[in-house]
Structure formats: structure tokens, C-alpha cells
């Protein structure tokens, strides 16, 4: 029997990291930077949070202060992803390197960085299992609203998540608002559509590109932090984050570059991601592998359909992936 009340919360917690990644990627894509380093950035964000939490747990000796337990991992995560964003921005905006190449190199680097420091921490703790558990700090991340338990199904579906989950939704809506309704958002989109025109209109291309890439990476990094500290209850094991970063990039297309749609689409993707656990296939394990294909197939179909319908407002930003050099015209 398909258990919807159990399914929805699990789909949502799967969707939250994707939502962070998708919102971050949308911001940088809207300014014309196709950042394929997002999977790496999310790894770095996650591991930096883990390092912060680990150092804090080691130094406080058992007396965990709730405020510090949240701020330290949060800040170290933001710092780590900011540095990755700066790296991408320096290479692609200032040094005008190819975005796809830099992005792929960043993903290689970021995943390696995460697994290396994750592995080192695991060795430091000397545990038998290949993972590191930060249950003390993680408790503060995954604490839901206190009365959620008393409210039955409603509480379980809407109120049972850690604060980062709600933050993801709020950030996505704010991003959608800023991109669509404010002057900053208009300038940002102008930079992504046609940087030469935007430049002529007096918009500072370099500043908008740097800011959009850095902010985008910081938001994406939070997705990694949410995954480790809340979803995985503080357990870091190497490669556990998997291909969610690529899925987040797929989600950007799926949502047609609109973070407000991404809120629901990410839950849908989260659902598709774990659907195989809920579809009764009996002992046939092989078919489950085919169900795992769903999110990607759906993305491909959306990609094809938007290409075919060719509506102007559904297209990628026009200068997506292209470098801008003022004297190149």
C-alpha cells in the first residue's frame, strides 16, 4: 500500500538539498554563468560544516551550546562555499576561462576535497565504521517545531523539519522575488541575457557576475550542510551525497529558471528520487534501478519540450556559458 503520509516528508527532505543547489545555480545562471562546479561546491559546503562541527565538538568537551553548535558549522560552510565561488568567478570572469571546463575541474576538486577531509576526520576519530557521526551538533540542526508531534499527519507533513529546510523555501521565494521584481534582479537578468547591452546601459558586469556566482555558491553550499547535519543526522560518509549536485542543475532547467517553481519541483524530484522505495516491486530489485532513472528522464523530456515549444520566456539566459570581454565586439 502506498503510504502518502510517510512518503511526503521523505520526498521533502530529499528535495531540500536539491532546492538549495537549484536556487544557487539559478542565480548564477541568470547572470550568464553556467556553473557546473555546483556538485563540488555542495561537497565543500558539507565538509566545511562537518569540519566546523567536529572542531567545536572536540573543543567544547560535551557541553554543547545550541547557538554555537549552529553558527560555527553554518559559518564555516558559508566560508568554504564562498571560496569556491570566488575561485570560479576569478577564473571565468577575470581570467575569462571556459565555464564548463572550470566547472568540471571544480567538481573534481570539490568532491576530492570533501572525501579527503571526510576520510581524514574518520581516521582521526578512529572509528570502525567508515563514517563520522556528529550527533550532538546535528541534534540542533534537525530539531523540528516542538509541537509538531502532537498534530498528527499535518504536523508530520509540514512541521517536522529542521530550520534549514524552512530556510531553503524562504531563500527560494526571496530569490524569485528579487530576480523578478527588483531593479537588482532586472540588472542581473540583463547581464545574463546580453552583457554588451547591459554594459552600455552602465551596469557593472564584473560586479554582478562576481556577486551572483558567490551568492549562488553559498546558497548551494548550504544544501550540502543540510544534507549532512540534518538529513544524515550528522553522519558524514564519503560519496554519500552522490549525484545530487547534478540533479540540482537538472532541476534548474526543469523549473525554467524560476526558484518559486523550484520549491515544488524539488519536492517532486525528491519524490522521484525515492519513489523506488515505495513502489511495491516485491523481490525484483532490478526494476528499482530503472525507477531511479525517473528524475533524469523527466528532465530530458522537459528539456526537449521547452526546446520544441520555443517560447521566449522559457529559454535559458541568452549569453549562458559565454564569457564577456568588452573589447571583443
Amino acid at each position, binding site marked *: 500500500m502506498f503510504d502518502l503520509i510517510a512518503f511526503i516528508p521523505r520526498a521533502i527532505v530529499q528535495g531540500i538539498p536539491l532546492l538549495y543547489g537549484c536556487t544557487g545555480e539559478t542565480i548564477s545562471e541568470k547572470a550568464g554563468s553556467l556553473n557546473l562546479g555546483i556538485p563540488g561546491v555542495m561537497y565543500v559546503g558539507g565538509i566545511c560544516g562537518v569540519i566546523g562541527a567536529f572542531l567545536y565538538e572536540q573543543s567544547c568537551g560535551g557541553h554543547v551550546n545550541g547557538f554555537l553548535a549552529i553558527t560555527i558549522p553554518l559559518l564555516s560552510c558559508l566560508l568554504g562555499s564562498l571560496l569556491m565561488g570566488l575561485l570560479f568567478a576569478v577564473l571565468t570572469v577575470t581570467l575569462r576561462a571556459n565555464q564548463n571546463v572550470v566547472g568540471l575541474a571544480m567538481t*573534481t576538486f570539490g568532491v576530492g576535497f570533501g572525501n579527503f577531509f571526510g576520510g581524514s576526520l574518520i581516521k582521526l576519530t578512529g572509528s570502525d565504521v567508515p563514517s563520522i557521526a556528529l550527533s550532538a551538533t546535528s541534534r540542533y540542526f534537525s530539531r523540528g517545531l516542538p509541537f509538531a508531534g502532537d498534530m498528527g499527519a499535518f504536523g508530520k507533513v509540514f512541521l517536522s523539519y529542521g530550520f534549514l529546510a524552512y530556510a531553503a523555501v524562504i531563500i527560494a521565494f526571496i530569490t524569485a522575488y528579487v530576480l523578478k521584481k527588483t531593479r537588482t534582479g532586472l540588472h542581473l537578468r540583463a547581464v545574463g541575457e546580453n552583457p554588451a547591452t547591459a554594459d552600455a546601459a552602465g551596469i557593472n558586469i564584473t560586479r554582478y557576475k562576481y556577486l551572483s556566482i558567490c551568492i549562488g555558491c553559498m546558497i548551494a553550499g548550504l544544501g550540502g550542510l543540510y544534507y549532512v547535519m540534518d538529513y544524515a543526522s550528522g553522519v558524514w560518509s564519503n560519496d554519500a551525497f552522490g549525484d545530487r549536485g547534478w540533479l540540482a542543475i537538472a532541476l534548474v532547467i526543469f523549473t525554467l529558471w524560476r526558484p518559486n517553481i523550484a520549491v515544488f519541483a524539488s519536492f517532486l524530484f525528491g519524490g522521484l528520487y525515492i519513489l523506488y522505495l515505495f513502489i511495491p516491486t516485491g523481490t525484483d530489485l532490478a526494476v528499482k534501478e530503472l525507477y531511479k532513472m525517473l528524475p533524469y528522464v523527466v528532465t530530458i523530456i522537459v528539456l526537449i519540450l521547452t526546446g520544441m515549444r520555443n517560447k521566449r520566456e522559457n529559454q535559458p539566459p541568452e549569453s549562458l556559458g559565454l564569457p564577456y570581454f568588452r573589447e571583443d565586439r
Partner: protein
Amino acid sequence: MSSKANQEPLLHITKRRAMPWQAAWAVRIGSIVFALIICAIITMAATGLDPMSVYGTMLDGAFGSERKIWILGKETAVLLIIALAMAPAFRMKFWNLGGEGQVLIGALVTAAMMIYLGERLPNPILILLMFVAAVAAGALWAGIPAFFKAKWNTNETLFTLMMNYVAIQLVAYYIIIWESPKGSGKVGVINQATEAGWLPRIGDFQYLLNIIIVALVTIGIYIYLKYSKHGYEISVVGESQQTARYVGIKVDRVIIRTLLLSGAICGLCGFLMVSGTDHTITTTLAGGRGFIGVLVAWLAQFNPGAMVFASLLLTVLTRGASEISTIYGLNQSFGDILTGIILFCIIGSEFFINYRVHFRKGVGRRVDGGSKPAAVAETAGDDPAEKETGKEGADV
């Protein structure tokens, strides 16, 4: 504000004419040396080991024994053939990030034929069939995104990326169906007893045949890109689709044809890996090399000769990293970090090959300290007059 507006920018950037190739390579090698120094510092900081001995161990891991050199050759060949497959597509500015999936699907078809036709056909016919099927499967996997790109201009970067995961799940599906022994989650060595569908080995050298085939493909791609009409059409389409249409090149046909070739070579790579060396299939068969191959092709600027060196360099790094991970008890991923840093440095160095930085004369007058290029725009605001000063600065 007004004093800033009248300043020449601290530095401005112009495009270079083609740098002599010696100078360009000097810059690239310089960037690799620079990267190695950074890596040494990071190695010391992160692990406390003497970086020289770490590098020594890495070289030892890559070249230390005859066996290690053979493995190095085999791994380089795999990376090289994937990079070669990517090159024609990138030349055309078609970002095929689906190498991973195209290799896997070629491997999957090869493995399927080994399993189902293993005992039914004589070996030479079986191998020939496997080869044809793998190449066709790889071509199909790349042809689908190419078709949609040519017809409806769908975004190929993302389409090919998604095709990877479809291929990975397909392989995962068949691994469970074929798994042997049951419940192990692995396919195991296919046809171990009969060696049906295994590529013959030349003398005692298990990997030699693969290396020879890849060398032939390298030469073939070099000739194809440089001397054939197709290669010429690819470069024209890559430079400007409008120009290509104007001179009567059918752009959509070139796109589909080139991608079929790209996918076919990836399929060949999958065939070589399953039939030639591994004799089994896993979802991590390509192991990220579909992406690393992209980087190799780009680093070599689509020159097959340079690709040999680039793929050798990256393979030495990975092999060396796995050696230090066993000797010093470091994590295998340390190699990815080093690879990443070296790539960033090489990528960054391209800027100094393609552009020239001019400093303003009399740097002492510096006010804004804008070290970024296009720093003019930071102070420019909306005033068109200020734009003018920016332009003048660029003309000096």
C-alpha cells in the same frame, strides 16, 4: 568620485595576436610548475609529510615497475580515447558531457553479447559483432542529444549530462539481472572459463592491443580534424554557424554526423574496456573519466598530439595518488585535490596566453586600486562620459 572618473584604469587588457607556440608552452609548463609548488605547500600543511618524498612516491607509483608502467599505459589509453572522442564535438563548440554514458552503453552492449552469445558463435565473429554493436550503441547515445540540438536547439550540455545517468541506471539494472554469484551485486568475470568474446592478447602483453588501437585512433582523429573536408566543416561550424550556413554547410547535418562519431569512439572505448581488459562491467567503469576527458581535450586545445601528453600527465597524477594513499595511509581522494589544483593553474594560465595586461604608466597615481579588469566599469555608474575615459584608457 570625479577624480576617479578622470583616471586611467590601473590596468587594462587586450587580446594578443597568436603567441609563438614556444612561449605558449613555456607559460603552460610554468603554470604546472607553479601548481606543483602550491600542491607541495598544501601537502605539507595537510599531512605534515615532506613534499619531495611524496612526489617521489607518486612517480614511483606511476613508473616504479614494469607492471606499473603497463597499467599506466592502459589507463592513459582509456583517458586518451575518451578525450579524442570529445575533440571533434568541442571543436564545433558542442559540449558533449555525456562521455561517461556513451562509454557505459558501449560497455553494456559488449557485456550483453558476451553473456548471451558467448558460446553460440565462433570467437572472431562474436568479437566483430560486439565491436559493431558497441560502436553503434555509443553513437546512438550521442546521436539522440545531437538530433534534438540540430532540430530544436535544445541545450546539449545538460542533455548529454542527463543521458549519463540514464546509462548508469540501465547498467545497474542489468548488473542485478546478470549478477553472479547471486546476491553479490557484481557481474564477476564474464566467460572466465571459455574466454569467449575476449580480445586476443599480443604475446604476453595483456594491454598492448588496447594501446595500439588507441594510438591508431589518435592518428585517425588527427588526420580527420586536420586534413579532411569534414574536419574543415567542423571548424567552420565551431567558429560561426552563420558563416557555415552562408558558405552552404548543412549545420544540422554536421552536428549530428560529428556527434555520431564522438559517441562511436566512446562506444569503442567501452568495448575495449570490457572485451580487452576488464572482462566485467560495473557502473563506475568510466569512473569520471568522461568528465576528465573533456578537460584533457580542452587543455590540449583539440590537438591530438598534445592530448597524449595531457592524458599521460593526469593519469600519472591519479596513479601516483593511489600509490601515496597506500604508502602514507592518505585518502585516495588526495589525488583529486592535486589534480584540481593543477587544472585550475593550467586553466588560469590560458588567460596570459590569450590576453596581454597593460599597466597604466606611473602607477604611483593609483587611486581606486581596482585590480580587476574592467575596473573602469566599477566607477562608471550611468554616465556615458565616463565610459569614454574608459575607452581612451584602453587605447593607450
